[in-house]
């Protein structure tokens, strides 16, 4: 029983076979650049790059769109608010509200940014299992604490979820039905508190078990990564494209 699925992590495409270390490095640079970019040209370049990755990864279009939809359902709210509150030249009037040109441009920029980053991460990060990512981060000499945090968070999400299911089943078999009343709220509060206490206890026991097996704060990995020529090519092409994006970002004002 596995409550958390990683549907994108399995596959035999080129992107799946690339060394995760290269993917992590490119993904980090890519997201930072896209997050700070202010010009549409840069972002469109990034979007094109991300779409190429996505195609290389042969991730199901339907599943990918499903994820994007989830992200964009949050962004929709920005479209309700931002264009009408951002100061600038008025463009459209909706009843008493006025949408500014700058507001619309700004919201568009945010929308483009988020989608570009999500597509990029979907292609680069989601195509490796979380555990492999953690090990890749470790071998890139990122801080141990960060890697452990990632690995343990992932590992114990399952436990957390199972514990939650068990508790809520126990409530159900005793006839609990959520309603809008104090009894329901109180029961949910108990559930949350019990989940916290139990998870804490479990974390304690797991740590004890680890200490008994000689754990002293360092994880040794059995995984060895092998850097191949295709990884160098991927890294070089991606970095060049990103450099081009950066150039466009800096020179963007002059180009347009």
């Amino acid at each position, binding site marked *: 029983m596995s409550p958390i699925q990683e549907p994108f992590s399995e596959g035999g495409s080129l992107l799946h076979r690339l060394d995760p270390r290269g993917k992590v490095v490119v993904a980090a640079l890519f997201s930072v650049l896209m997050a700070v970019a202010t010009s549409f040209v840069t972002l469109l370049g990034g979007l094109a790059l991300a779409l190429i990755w996505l195609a290389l990864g042969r991730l199901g279009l339907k599943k990918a769109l499903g994820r994007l939809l989830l992200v964009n359902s949050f962004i929709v709210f920005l479209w309700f608010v931002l264009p009408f509150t951002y100061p600038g030249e008025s463009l459209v009037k909706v009843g008493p509200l006025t949408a500014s040109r700058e507001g619309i441009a700004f919201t568009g920029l945010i929308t483009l940014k988020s989608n570009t980053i999500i597509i990029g991460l979907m292609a680069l990060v989601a195509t490796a299992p979380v555990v492999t990512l953690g090990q890749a981060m470790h071998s890139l000499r990122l801080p141990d604490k960060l890697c452990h945090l990632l690995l343990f968070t992932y590992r114990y999400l399952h436990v957390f979820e199972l514990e939650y299911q068990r508790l809520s089943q126990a409530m159900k078999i005793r006839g609990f039905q959520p309603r809008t009343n104090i009894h329901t709220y109180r029961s949910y509060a108990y559930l949350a508190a019990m989940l916290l206490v139990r998870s804490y206890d*479990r974390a304690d026991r797991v740590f*004890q078990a680890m200490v008994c*097996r*000689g754990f002293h704060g360092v994880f*040794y990995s059995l995984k060895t990564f092998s850097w191949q020529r295709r990884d160098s090519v991927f890294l070089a092409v991606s970095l060049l494209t990103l450099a081009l994006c950066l150039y466009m970002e800096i020179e963007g004002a002059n180009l347009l």
Partner: protein
Amino acid sequence: MTEPLIELRDITFTYPGAARPVFQDFNFQLLPGKHLGLVGPNGSGKTTMLHLIMGLLRPQAGKVVIFGREVSKERNFVEVRRQVGLLFQNADDQLFCPTVLEDVAFGPLNQGKSPAEAVGIARMTMLQLGLEGFEDRVTYKLSGGEKKLVSLATVLAMQPKILLLDEPTTGLDDQTRRRLIRILKDLEISYLIVSHEHEFLEHTVKECCHVHSTFCETLPIPPRGVGL
């Protein structure tokens, strides 16, 4: 007289916030080559005793002596844990790596073995326990019995000199229980088993210790029906 492997001398231990101590001037010995059962009602301190030996809990008074040396500091217990293996009551607490092989290799890696050596030891231990072919299985998807055997493999992979087992048969079916009995009979090291199961103890140990708060009463055969 032979020197005991494990000795608890005049141990006093109270859980924080508890009204009465679990142990008061408690004494216990495990002699080399012994296979000992620990029995006693729930809450009599059997698990606590194992945790005191491993240094997961520290007594308020008294001495823990292991392999003839007093251990009181974390530094010393680190050394103890390399040689004494503890099988936890709940296998879910023990297994935390994604795959079985990684989990079994975790201990040897911590002992400073190279990845290749660790994998070799892990595979050998798994073979010994009849777990070949489990290498890439995902630990949280194993059945209860499989989890227990894999947990045992993770402990035995560290090649301990003493094995402590905390209610190893809880929730096991007859077949797995028999398998566990066979495995324990084949072991050449001393072990200590906490169990409430008379039959299981009959097959695995020759003596039982009835745990009281001040002493451990050794009885030659498992006392049938008494607090079991």
